[in-house]
């Protein structure tokens, strides 16, 4: 049975990766907005923002990557919604395959496609002044945090894709998530924010994730931030997974 799960998930992954690579426009839409923010903050706002660091591109990179992932996962909801509408979801479920592979195919595809956008954005970052001398372990830690963040949000996207009634609705859940980095330490230090805003900013998941990645790239001690970041991701992942499974069971007997 395990081999079936792997075979079936592999086939499903191959299928939806083709969906990603054949709709180049989705890759462009996913990366163009974060790249626009990157350029906007680097060349327009950046000069006026006091962060206490000499390289503002380094400062804003982690937040831009999180925005990219938050908007990228909405396509997972969109693709899943289309599968449900088109009837191919039911076809798969009436076949002698491992049923979990249908969702896992989408989830793994989300990891692959978001990894592609993250790499593209890092390359653009390097071109406009992002610099790090982080070693392989720090890079692996950054990749791990981003993968956890993607996985957690992807399961949120699965809930949305399974329960939405229109394709616009399937993607709409990601708008607030895309906005979260703006009320965090992603672009400006939280110290300048008024009390309640600052309290929110410092205690929401994006800040700890941004601080961890920034510290890893700057080869600074990450302190507790990385554990808070991973805790947030694991917590969101677990809750979203449970809700996604409940939504899934409502869809299928």
């Amino acid at each position, binding site marked *: 049975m395990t081999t*079936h799960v792997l075979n079936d998930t592999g086939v499903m992954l191959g299928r939806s990766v083709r969906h990603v690579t054949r709709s180049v426009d989705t890759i462009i839409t996913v990366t163009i907005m974060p790249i626009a923010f990157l350029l906007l903050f680097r060349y327009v706002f950046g000069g006026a923002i006091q962060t206490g660091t000499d390289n503002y591109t380094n400062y804003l990179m982690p937040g831009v990557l999180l925005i990219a992932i938050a908007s990228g996962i909405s396509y997972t909801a969109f693709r899943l919604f289309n599968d449900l509408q088109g009837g191919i979801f*039911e*076809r798969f479920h009436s*076949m*002698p395959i491992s049923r979990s592979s249908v969702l896992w195919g989408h989830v793994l595809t989300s990891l692959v496609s978001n990894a592609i956008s993250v790499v593209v954005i890092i390359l653009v970052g390097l071109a406009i002044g992002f610099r790090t001398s982080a070693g392989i372990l720090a890079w692996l830690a950054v990749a791990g945090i981003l993968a956890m963040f993607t996985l957690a949000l992807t399961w949120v996207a699965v809930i949305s894709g399974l329960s939405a009634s229109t394709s616009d609705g399937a993607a709409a859940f990601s708008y607030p998530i895309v906005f979260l980095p703006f009320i965090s330490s992603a672009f400006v230090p939280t110290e300048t924010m008024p009390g309640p805003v600052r309290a929110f900013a410092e205690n929401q998941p994006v800040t700890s994730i941004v601080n961890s990645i920034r510290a890893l790239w700057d080869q600074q001690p990450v302190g507790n931030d990385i554990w808070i970041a991973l805790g947030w991701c694991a917590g969101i992942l677990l809750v979203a997974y449970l809700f996604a499974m409940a939504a899934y069971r409502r869809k299928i007997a």
Partner: protein
Amino acid sequence: METRNPAIQVAGLTKSYQDLHVLKGVDFTVAGGSIFALLGSNGAGKTTIVRILATLLKSDSGTATVNGFDVASAPAAVRESISLTGQFAAVDEILSGRENLIMIAKLRRVKNPAGVADDLLERFSLTDAGGRRVATYSGGMRRRLDIAMSLIGDPPVIFLDEPTTGLDPEARIEVWQEIQKLAGGGTTVFLTTQYLDEAEKLADRISILHQGTIIVSGTLAELRQLLPPAKVEYVERQPTLEEIFLAIVGKEKQR
């Protein structure tokens, strides 16, 4: 093509959605290797029955077996025995026709998926279109691809839920020919349709689903006997199945 074990057996099947009682005790049997047509108006519950038999939906009560396996207690064995072609062509628009077939062949773990795909493209006259994205296909081509995908792995029972809805007359005839070939090869075909001529043309046995129960079952000849013999007055002709259907359904409503 005599009856072996019944390919499908349904007894006392019920299903409700809140206050809406879609199925109120459905019974029928389908002989192996035959074409069975389930007739009914839109919303009569045909698709609900198909979804229960294809293990996509649980019934509230009653039993249903497909190829000897109970849909509730042995769903995995049922899925090994069936293929479902739903009401909307369940094909992947972004993949090519050939890739769709290979995908299903891999999921069904048949040997030589590419060879199976090429054979089916040939058989369904899709060889030239095989490399094109399905999004560019016509309705008839999609349906043919959809049915071709259902044949992979040679499942003994095939469900076709309104296979010709939305097709032009020529495409309908192509689909009909494929269905007849299938049954000729020993596959049991469970067909739902709202086109009465379709059932008349294809089905060995017909059941009419109306207001949650099967109100009549039989061969076309048996259904014809339910009406008084053709009157020899001005015109002499047998009643069409359409007349039989409307007469029976009308009678039920008056009760």
